[in-house]
Structures are given as C-alpha cells and as structure tokens.
C-alpha cells in the first residue's frame, strides 16, 4: 500500500528558520529610525503556520455558534426529547484518538526522513496511510451511528435533539473529510518529494484539532441529548 520514496524530498532551504531571507518576522519587529536593519529579525514564518490557526479559529467560532444555538433551543422549549447516544460513537472516538497518535508518529518519521536520516527511516508514508485508514474508519463509524439512529426512527427532523445530533456530527464529519483530503495531499507531496515541513505541521494541527473538537462535541451531546 505504501509508496516507496526513492529520493529524500527537496527541502526548501529558504523556509528554514536559520536562513536569511527577505521576510520580516517577529510581531513587534521595530526598526530604529536611523535605518539600522541589522537589529531586524530576518526570519518570517511560513504563511501556512499562521493560516492554520486562522482556519482553526473560524471552525471554533462555527461550532461555538452551533453550541449556543443548542443551549438556547433546549432552554427555551418544552419539546426536547433525550435519547441515548449510539455506543459505536465511543469506538469512533477511540479510532480518532489513535489516528492522532499515528499521525504524530508519522510526523516524526517524515521529519527524520526530511532531515536526511534516510537509512534509518523506511517508507515514511506508511504511518500516514494508517492515519488515513483510521480517519476513513471514523467517518464510516459515524455513518453507522446515523444508520442506527434512523433505524430507531430518529431522523433529522424528528426532534430538536436529533436535529442537533445530525447537524453537529455531520458538520464535524465534513471537516474530518477535509482533513483526510489534507492527508492525501501530504502523501502525494511526499511521494513527489515536494513536501514542506510547514504543510505537514499544519495538516497535523488540523487533524489533532478534529480530535479535540470531537471530544468536546461528544461531551456536549452526552450532556445535552
């Protein structure tokens, strides 16, 4: 399954922190008015290391809005019926958490591989494939949970509690699918030797965030449904 990478990826040296280049890093990188530029930091972070936090913030706001909608909707109505969460969700949780661990393993391996320790690292993509597989299993597991609920007669419109269950889990699953797309991209770039360290880091932050977000959602659903 794993692709064989024959050559170590080309490392974009200009992206490494110790290189001098034109970017201006530092958040308060003030330069004195006499124009002495030697005191200026000469390193700017790769944009994806900022952009990933921007993205995660937007996703957080989105789920915060959904959560507050849930609180308000539950608090203001008399038609809220609780139900037991399908037990497969707990298995799914485990899968997602394990996938975070495997991704972290692969991140270290790819880093070592990119760092030139080629002989010690065989097929650095293997753990990425395992992560991808676990992620797919998670989505399949969520699908199984939806099937189980609809078999019990709980559909999207049956009750506000089921509505929120479907909306929150489906939105999360869509974001997980986005993360899977990101993993596929990382694997492709690795096999083409064009992977940047910052891309790998950003993808893994996103993936870990999906796990944390899921833990929060599970807690919310368990408390409120």
């Amino acid at each position, binding site marked *: 399954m794993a692709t064989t990478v024959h050559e170590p990826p080309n490392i974009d040296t200009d992206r490494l922190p110790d290189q001098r280049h034109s970017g201006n890093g530092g958040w308060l990188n003030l330069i004195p008015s006499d124009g002495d530029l030697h005191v*200026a930091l000469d390193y700017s972070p790769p944009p994806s290391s*900022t952009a990933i936090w921007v993205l995660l913030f937007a996703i957080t706001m989105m789920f915060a*809005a959904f959560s507050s909608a849930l609180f308000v909707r539950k608090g203001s109505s008399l*038609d809220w019926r609780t139900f037991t969460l399908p037990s497969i969700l707990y298995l799914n949780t485990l899968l997602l958490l394990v996938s975070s661990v495997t991704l972290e393993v692969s991140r270290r391996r790819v880093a070592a591989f990119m760092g030139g320790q080629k002989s010690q690292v065989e097929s650095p993509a293997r753990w990425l494939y395992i992560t991808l597989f676990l992620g797919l299993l998670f989505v399949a597991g969520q699908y199984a949970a939806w099937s189980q609920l609809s078999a019990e007669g709980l559909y999207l419109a049956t009750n506000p509690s089921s509505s929120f269950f479907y909306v929150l889990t489906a939105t999360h699953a869509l974001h997980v699918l986005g993360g899977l797309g990101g993993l596929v991209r990382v694997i492709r770039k690795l096999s083409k030797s064009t992977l940047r360290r910052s891309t790998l880091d950003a993808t893994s932050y996103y993936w870990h965030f999906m796990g944390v977000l899921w833990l929060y959602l599970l807690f919310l659903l368990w408390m409120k449904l």
Partner: protein
Amino acid sequence: MHEMSAQVVQHHAPPTSFVRKYIFSLDHKVIGKQYYALALVAALCGMVLSWMMRIHLGWTNVAIPGLQLLSKNGAPGGVMTPEYYLELMTMHGTIMVFFVLTTAPFAAFGNFFLPIQVGAEDMPFPRINMSSFWVTFLAFIVLMSSFFVGDGPTLGGWTQYAPLNAVGSAGGPGQGLGVVLWMVSIALFCVGQLLGALNFISTTLDLRVKGMSLMRLPLSAWAWFITSCMGLTAFAVLLPACILVILDHVAGTSFFVASSLVINDQLLPHSGGSTLLWQHLFWFFGHPEVYIAIVPGIGIVSHILITNMRKPMLSQRVLIYCMGALAVLSYMVYGHHMFVSGMNPYSSLAFSFPTLVITIPATIIVLIWTFSLYGSKLRINSASLFALGFISMFVSGGVSGFFLAQPSIDIMLHATYFVVGHFHMVMGVAAMFGIFSGTYFWFPKMTGRMMDETLGRIHFWLSFVGTYCIFMPFHYLGIAGNIRRYSTFVNDFLQPLIPVHRWITVAALITGAAQLVFVYNLIHSRFWGKPAPDNPWEATSLEWSTATPPPWDNFGGKHPVVYHDPFQYGVQSSVGDYVMQASPEQVKTEHEEK
C-alpha cells in the same frame, strides 16, 4: 535606486493564457479589480432598486414604466404591490450591505493594495484568493436569480428575522424558494469572505518585507488587517445560522419556528423553535458587519488625508488602537438591535453600556482627524474632498447613534425612519464616500491613468449635498413617528409627511443620477485618461515605489526594503517634502514615532 534584497518566495509564474490573466486569475491585483467590478455592478443594481422604492413612496399610484416586465405579479401595470415593495427593499439592503459595503472597501482595495503595501509579491494562497472571489460572485448570482425564479425574492428584510424566514410560502411571496436562495447566497458569501480573511491575515503577519514592522504598516493596511480579523469571527457565525434556516426549510427541522404557529390560516408543522435565537446569531454577525463596512473606510480616509495634508496624523498608534477597540467592542454591543425584541430588559442595560462606550474610540478617531487637519495646508482634490465628506457623514450619522444606544429612547425610535437615516449615513454613505475617496486616490495605480478631476469634484458636490438632502429628513420623519418598511402612508398621522417623502425622492433621483458622472469618469478615464506617473500624489507607502500599473509580481522580481515609518511628510529630502518608505535616504524628522 532603492536597495532591494534577493527575491525568495515565488508564488506563481506570470500568467500566460487569457483565462489565467483575466478570469481565473491568481494575481491579487486582478482579483481586487474583479471585486471592484462586482461591487460596482451590485451598487448600480442596489441604486436602481432604491429609485423604484423612492418613486413608490413619493407617488404611490404612479406606474413605473417597465416594472411589470420584472415581475408580473409584483407590479401589475407597473404599480408595485406592498409585498413587492418589501422584496425590493430586502434586495436593496442585502446587495448594498454584503456585495457593496463589504466587497468594495475591504475585498477590492484590500486585495489590490494590502500585499503591495506590505511589500509582498502576492497573497500567500493565490488559489484560495481566487476561490474567494468566485464564490462571492456565485453568491451574487444566486441572490439575483431569486428575482427570476419561483414567486420572487424574499420580503423579510436584510435581517431576515425568524420566524418569517423559516415558515415557508405561508409567510408570503418569496418566503419559500426566495428565502432558501437568500440563505444559500449569504452562506456562500460567508465562505468567500472567510477564505479572503485567511489570506489577508497571513499576508499581514507573514509576508511583510524586511524593515516593515507592524507599526510601520500604513493605516489602510492596518484597517484591512483589523477588518479581516472581524470578518473571520463574524462570518463564521452567520454561516451556521444560515445552515440552520436552510434545514428548517428543506429538512423540516424546527430551529426557529415556535409551536402551533398559524400564518395565513395555515397551521405550521414546526414545534418549539426559538425566534429570538436567530436574532442573537444574526446580530452577533450583524453588528461587527457594520464595522467591517466602515473600518476599511477609516483606514483609507486616514491614509488619503495624511497624503494630502503632507503631515502625519497626531498619532498613528492611537488611531490603530482605536480601530482595534472598535473591532473588539463591536462584538459586545450587538444586543442594541434587540432592545424591543422581548429580550430580558436587564440585558438591554448590559448592551447599552458598551454601545455608549464604543462611541469613545470613534470620537477619538474623529478628533485625531480634525485636530490633524487644523492648520494643515490640505491639498484639495477629489480624493481629499471625499475623505472630508466621509468625516462629515460619519459624524452626522454617528451622533444619532447616541440617542439610539439608550433603550428608553430607542423604544420610541425603533423601526422608524430615524434608524434608517442613522445607518444610511454612518455606515452606508460614509463607507461609500470612503470607496469613492479610495477610487480617486488609487485609480492611477490600478489602471495607469488619471481620473478627470473636474468631473470628480462635480461628483463630490452633487453627492455631498444630495446625501444630506436625502438622509437628514429621514431623522425628522422618524421623530414624527414614520415607521420604516411601510410601502404606503395611509394612516392619518403619516399623510402630512408625504411631501417630505417627495422631496427625498427627488433628491434621491438627482443624487443617484450624479453617480453616473462617476461611472462615466471611471470608464472614460480607464481608456482615455491622462497617463499616470508612478507617484502622482507624492505619497510614501510602498505601492507608490513600484511601476504604474504594478507588474504581475508587484516589484519586478525584487523585494523592497523598508527604512521609514509609513507617513514621512513635512521633511526635507532629495525628492521634496516627503521620504518614501523604501528610500534609504536619511532625513531629519520630528514625526518619527518611537
């Protein structure tokens, strides 16, 4: 020759094909122009809609020729029905707020000039940037399509209050498919703006050239950065809200419609929904949206005033902090839109206080402007005139905000023309003046040609006087109890106000026609205007260091190095009374901020 450091990051190759160059372009400058064109088309659509509404308000039974072609049921014989009036009003508000006031000052100018002002070659994610525009364009098409499908566009107002937004066709024409299209359009718009914010924030934080510290960013760049942070938070909340409404429509959920609701003799199948929930979600977006429209204008106007005053503002730093304070506070005041919604009265008090507090940074900004202007030899041109007009509108519209911020007064003025006058001046026209000011200022850099100055001044005076003729009477109408959203004034107490409405209608038609002068100037100058030099205004920021119009990679394969604060005017240098940010020349200056 300025010192340039070696080029490092190459984001994309120069475009070769027609499609890559002009349509699906990755170049932030082309994307900026596309946003500008979209805003221009949208503004003209919105203006025509307002003309039709104004004619109807002044002369209720007069047929508007051709209106029946747009909607047979909505305007039989050219006279609009009350429902159709509401549909036009909804579309006017939606088009103007989203597709003009958000896209033009923020997305259009920001896209074109933010990367150049920080010295970057492009945005860090050009493909995402391109999708940002095309998703927004799709959103506009979806919104406009509601004129032509089903029973017309939604009539619920640009705020789309629940439960009307979720009851379906029972609520009136356009409340079925029309609302769904509106929600899909706005959800797409949110996605587009989130993608844009992602690029704006990473550009500002990561792509600044050597020497460009955050405090050396020009005020316009600061304004776009702060606005993108606001947009990130606001649009990420409106998006899920729209999704929930769409589900109420197409999936039969009950998020927003209460139990046992009977509308037009139809019992609705929903149960237990919360009508106030929508208002909370919407205004959490909606109030920051007001600042998303105005903060870029504040930055643009400051930038242009400084250039024409030939001296920096009293304090660049305080201006930046005030814009930041507006951004933060804008999330704490949203409840002032809901004083009469049935929300807990104590929360009205809690929202009233920050609403009064938010006037403090706004007032400081205006004071910095006026005291900086005091005693300066302002160069008068179309750009600086519109900048002054911006301040005038911002103050005139802002003052009525003090009244509306107090729940006890707002209960009387809520949903009257007083509110309509207030927000049209403070966020609508003020932001438009910011757009005009920016256009006259940056047009030479964007196209390589100068705009006609005489036509610009005619445009300014007609717009300036016209705007006051339109929106000042709105305040009187509101105090007299004229309720907004009425299509005709049949009540006894409203009848005497009809002449005022006629005056407003005439003023609106003339002021609207004056905008055609601008459109003519824009198009004529684009092709036949005087060729522009690289730095026609003797300005200092980085966009004026490069060629006019800038090459595809902004600085011709090099990165500038920044040596100075953004606004070094009133100094003695080899080029005149200013020194450019990228010039290594040492000058003695008293304006350098430590």
